[in-house]
């Protein structure tokens, strides 16, 4: 057990924890923040995407010892009341189906728009590598395009 300190959505956290515990399970089991999802455990599906010091990161591969002192943002902190432009558009455009992967998709998309405010289709393809088994990709693309338009307007 090691004491690890970091912030999650702006709140300071201090945990006595097995330092090899992935950030994903730290959030889910130790902090009961279950919005970040377990999908594959090998960093491929992206369901566990969070922002680590502002950058989209797959939390299933990051041992918690690596985030000592870091700032983490999760889906629960993407906006104060679920009104991030992507969250609003995701509802309006009926993007999610089962919805399980969408926390991760939203965190990846929010990061993309922060870095590239008006991404091309190729940039969307290159940056959104999350897996959605329900096949919501066309609507994810539409949601990102619309968000880019509305943010630019």
């Amino acid at each position, binding site marked *: *057990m090691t004491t690890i300190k970091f912030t999650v959505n702006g709140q300071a956290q201090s945990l006595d924890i*097995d330092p*090899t*515990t*992935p950030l994903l*399970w730290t959030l889910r*089991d130790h902090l*009961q923040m*279950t*919005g*970040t*999802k*377990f*999908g*594959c*455990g*090998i960093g*491929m*599906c992206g*369901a566990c995407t969070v922002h680590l010091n502002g950058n989209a990161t797959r939390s299933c591969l990051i041992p918690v010892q690596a985030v000592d002192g870091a700032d983490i943002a*999760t*889906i*629960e902190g*993407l*906006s104060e*009341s*679920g009104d991030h432009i*992507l*969250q609003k558009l*995701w*509802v309006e*455009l*009926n*993007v*999610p*189906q*089962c*919805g*399980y*992967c*969408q*926390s991760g998709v*939203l965190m990846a998309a929010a990061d993309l728009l922060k870095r590239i405010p008006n991404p091309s289709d190729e940039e*969307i*393809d*290159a940056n*959104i*590598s*999350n*897996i*959605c*088994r*329900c*096949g*919501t*990709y*066309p*609507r*994810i*693309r539409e949601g990102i395009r619309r968000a880019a338009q509305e943010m630019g307007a």
Partner: protein
Amino acid sequence: MTQMKMSRRKFLITSATVAGGLSLQLVPIDAMAATGKNGGQRDSALSPWLTIQADDTIIVTVPTPEIGNGASTQQAMNIAEELACDWQRVNVEFASFSREYKQPGSYAVGMQPFFGGHSTDHERMPYTMQLGASARERLKLAAAQRWNVSITEIEARNSVLKHLPSGRTLRFGEVAAEAASVVLESEPSLKPQSEWTLLGKTKPHKVQLPKVVNGSAKYGVDVTRPGMVYAALRQSPVHGGLLKSHDPEAVLSMPGVRAVVVIDPSATPGSPVDASPTFGFEGSECRSGVAVIADHYWQAKKALDALPVEWDDGLGAFWNSDEKIHERQDRILDRWAGAPLTKSGNVDTVKAAKTIEATYRTPFCEHATMEPLNGTALYTEDSLELWHSTQDMQQAFWVAVDESGVHPDRVTIHQTMVGGGFGRRVIGDDVRAVVAVARQYPGVPVKVIWSREETTQQGAYRTQLAARFRAGLNEQGMLESLEGETCFSGMALNLGFTDMAYAFSGAIPNVRLAASNLPMHIATGAYRAPCYNAHAFTVETFIDECAVAGGIDPLEYRLKLLADWDPAWSHCLKLAAERAGWGKPLPKGQGRGIAISNWPHSGEKQAGATVCAVAHVEVSQEGKLTVHSIDFTFDCGRTVNLDAVLAQLEGGIIFGLNMSLNEGLTIVDGAVVESNFDRYPMLKMADIPEIKIHLEALSGHDRFAIIGEAPVGPIGPAIGNAIYQAIGKRVRSTPFRKQDLSWS
């Protein structure tokens, strides 16, 4: 029709006051008269379908799990259509099968036979709409009594009751409690479809989405209980194998580890009463294995990884390779001795101008739901509480009873959100494993989580199958005879094969379709459009081969074969072809292919959802396949929520793409080789072709056919047929990524 169904099923709508509001239940008359079935006691507690609270909140209770298809939203829409309420105030909660058990008929009778399936079914609509109408009339009557006016002077709209002559208004919530005690002289009749304002007119998003996008939606794996512990499990890699040995001492001292338990299929206590699982218990049996229980999941997983385990593979190890499976299948098919399923004319006496024969194969496929298998259970000596992301609560309930041995009166099940179903969470083998683990750690809630690897290798897969066809063509190139035999392992459904439209359209005088079985040890089960998902490929590829052999354009060939069939099929074919530019020249290495299929139609016209796809593909000389576009047409009769239908079509098309391009499990020494997305690839954003769904082939026929499964079918064969047009190579098995498509 609506009224007939209601009266034939003899339902009563009863009301009650709940927390200052109105609550309505559907109660079957025969169930009121009878003592509870299943040995259950009659129970006076409420099983509300619809509750209107004093603050105007409307709660619709839904027995259908929400697997992402919008089933719960659809039921709420059906009720809201007649209720004249503010859609923004509508909330959805899941019914518990425990209530159904204690008060038989509360949710299941007269609706669907099980707590799964499709709430959009035409048959379910009248009941739910009647609930809305009944509530509306009760609210109007309560307002009329309060104002001492005639009910005919009151209008209900947007959750407000208005006395038209005076303009006075009351909110639904203000009279909800009074509405619970008014007596209707008779149940109101339903609006004709022409007066619908919500169904078919609006396309609301799924009601649960605000919770999905802020991370607060609770899926099974998100269930958190006070004092909960976690379990990680490993089951015999060869299905049907047994745990030979393990060494708990090696891990019991690891941090957080509480126990190591064995999952023993022979230890199932059995249900203390006659059980009525929706699909029976076959396929839900425990798989021999071992689980580590710890304070946290990561501790359980680490200990499980460190646990020495030996397996006795059992007979399944006989199947040492896919080649062996194929070779045994061919031996069976060579005999052409399968049990005949469909027969007309006499295929043996046909003198064909040309005969063609081909064999097609589709492999085992894993559902790969994004939420790995999991479940949470709290077992005590005389009770069981289960939280589960099941697709069928009735099945899950009875499996839980059977595996706990607890009397169903004391088994409570909680439906959670479902992170993908596709048929994987139906049979309840996952429920059984959860209960088998929790039963050995009583008094403490245990959350059991399958790793992705365990989820993949302990699937209940789409069965692998082979289909062989033999056709006799006449001088004009058309089919004089068609013989087919499918050899499958597992579920004997044969949908999409025995009911293929070509066998029923009357265009082929001599038809014989048969099935044979290759028993294997590998667990199989429902997978988005069972059997059809494979046979849409085998049938539509063979018909394409017949067209080529007959020297007739594949589109024209299908139109001829279906000339006397449901005309919507021809409309779908023509529209998809036209929109895709059928017949326009393409550069070398590019091609278009077409395919059409329907789910589910059982050989009937104007039934199910007819779906047609034209794929435009390009194949490089090195054999790299690119799907440029899919033009897609469909006929499900009519739609009640067009956007929900389009979402299912988009998802189904992409599911069909992935299934055909990527999916296929490899069997070595009886075990599944693939374990995670690195070797079982999923399409991503960058891989999705342009998908163009055209609406104009919708026939308007009076049915709202289910739509989630059909679109999976025609995608693979359309691509395969396009590959043939592009490079002249006929692809007879999936996944296409494993085929050699190089050309020169």
